């Protein structure tokens, strides 16, 4: 347990949908939000949706958590995928919201078993496709 953690609960649906993304690849991405003192699923992205669709799903002045299943081809021409966890906390969001999301992140991420990489972004440039690619390889 991290120091000064919020103690926020996680709705079972979050874990369930995440398992579907991981095992069945039913979704490209999932957005989560905190509502009534627990983390719940906010939005599901279909496997056909692109990274741009994903980034466009984030509200500009509210925080979110998200997971994204990133497909890529390695230099050896090998098809691979990595699951990213993204903590979105735009500078324009309220301090209270930033505090709530940052202090609940560690606990929430532990609930999702199988995350390979993590990003924290406070503006869109910090989660651009280039950065995701750079981290994946």
């Amino acid at each position, binding site marked *: 347990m991290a120091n*000064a953690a919020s103690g926020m609960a996680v709705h079972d649906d979050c874990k369930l949908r995440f398992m579907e993304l991981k095992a069945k690849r039913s979704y490209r991405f999932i957005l989560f939000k905190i509502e009534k003192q627990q983390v719940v699923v906010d939005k599901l992205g279909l496997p056909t949706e692109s990274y741009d669709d994903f980034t466009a799903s984030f509200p500009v002045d509210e925080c979110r958590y998200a997971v994204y299943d990133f497909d890529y081809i390695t230099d050896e021409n090998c098809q691979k995928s990595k699951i990213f966890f993204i903590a979105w906390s735009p500078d324009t969001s309220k301090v209270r919201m930033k505090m709530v999301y940052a202090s609940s992140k*560690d606990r929430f*991420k532990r609930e999702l078993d199988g995350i390979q990489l993590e990003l*924290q972004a406070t503006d869109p440039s910090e989660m651009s496709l280039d950065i995701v690619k750079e981290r994946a390889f």
Partner: protein
Amino acid sequence: MYGGDEVSAIVIDLGSHTCKAGYAGEDAPKAVFPSVVGAMDQMEIDDPESTENNSGSGVDSKNNVRNLDSDKKKGKCKLYVGTQALGYRRDHMEILSPLKDGIVLDWDIVDSIWDHAFRECLLIETKEHPMLLAEPSSNTQQQRERTAELMFEKYKVPALFLAKNAVLTSFASGRATSLVVDSGGGSTTVAPVHDGYVLQKAVATSPIGGELLTDCLLKSLESKGLTIKPRYSFKRKEIRSGEFQTVDLDFPNTTESYKLYCQRIIASDIKECVCRAPDTPYDEKSYSNIPMTPYELPDGQTIEIGADRFKVPDVLFNPSLVQTIPGMESFADIAPSVRGLPQMVIESINKCDVDIRRELFSSILVNLLAVQSSMQQLKERLEKDLLEESPQTARVKVLASGNATERRFSVWIGGSILASLGSFQQMWFSKTEYEEHGASYIQRKCP
């Protein structure tokens, strides 16, 4: 588990310069007052002249403090706490600070400060409110247990939480991972926070804070023959409209520490008004012809400040400058071990695991309250220096909150939000748990 979220918690951030206290859930602390106290020997109190003027804010440590230290010498002192009580000059009153480098040295003084916050400022019954205290990253296990004992035994609080300064600042900016650079009154701390944990081994501290910079300015002005008269040492009256006369008053029994306390208040204001961080390292030659900036002292005397405007803030980046200021010789003893801000940042990051260095470089959170007015320039300067000295692959990003209140109270605000969350109520270290497991359980509850 402590289940009462109907009574609001109290949040206290006792910094080396000011103590911030208030109700959880509010945007800013209700009470902000100096973290130093005025102390007078009980013997002096019996002197009829000074008893007359004892204001209500004085806390008699002999009667109120359950003396855990059983320090006999301190037990005979009367302590004056709060802006008002300190603003009144008293014969033989010494100014004492309970902290050194953010760590508590004198628990009686800390106790008197808490007491002042609860009883004089917030007017609360401590047994009714859970208490969230912000603590420095380097707080030892012993200090934390002592805090728990005092809070539960003396103040009978129903629940307690100790949150680390750096973690609160990081969270309040929306980041669970960041490098928090905090330059406060008494010191500068660089603390890496990863997923809400402070990486203790990589924390870097230096004694260069706002107070040292204020002293540099004060000494430098004195060396040029400019004396800053403390507010109590003169009377100023209007003899004709627009024309003032200053009459010096003589109080031979004023202590040196009180005189310095009063001079620092003025010098600190001069610093905030005129000092600017230079874009490039300060050097005597290129700044010798800099235009002078006037400043009017409380006694009506106008002084002119030139190169010091830039030299003083540059001390943060280049501590060896202190030794060039006459009267600051005492600093020479520690000078060789003190690093400038950019070096501290790089050293701290290099002590962290290779995997997270990149992320730390890209979220350096600065809170440089040492020269509040020049925050933006200090931030840009740090970013520039770091770009030159960091590895090529690192994306250096230095961030600062745009809002002055959020900057000044970032730690307190973080604590205020956390303690007011419904979900947090299960996280408190409760009185029952304290009674069952003892003070050492604080390590488990507030890691």
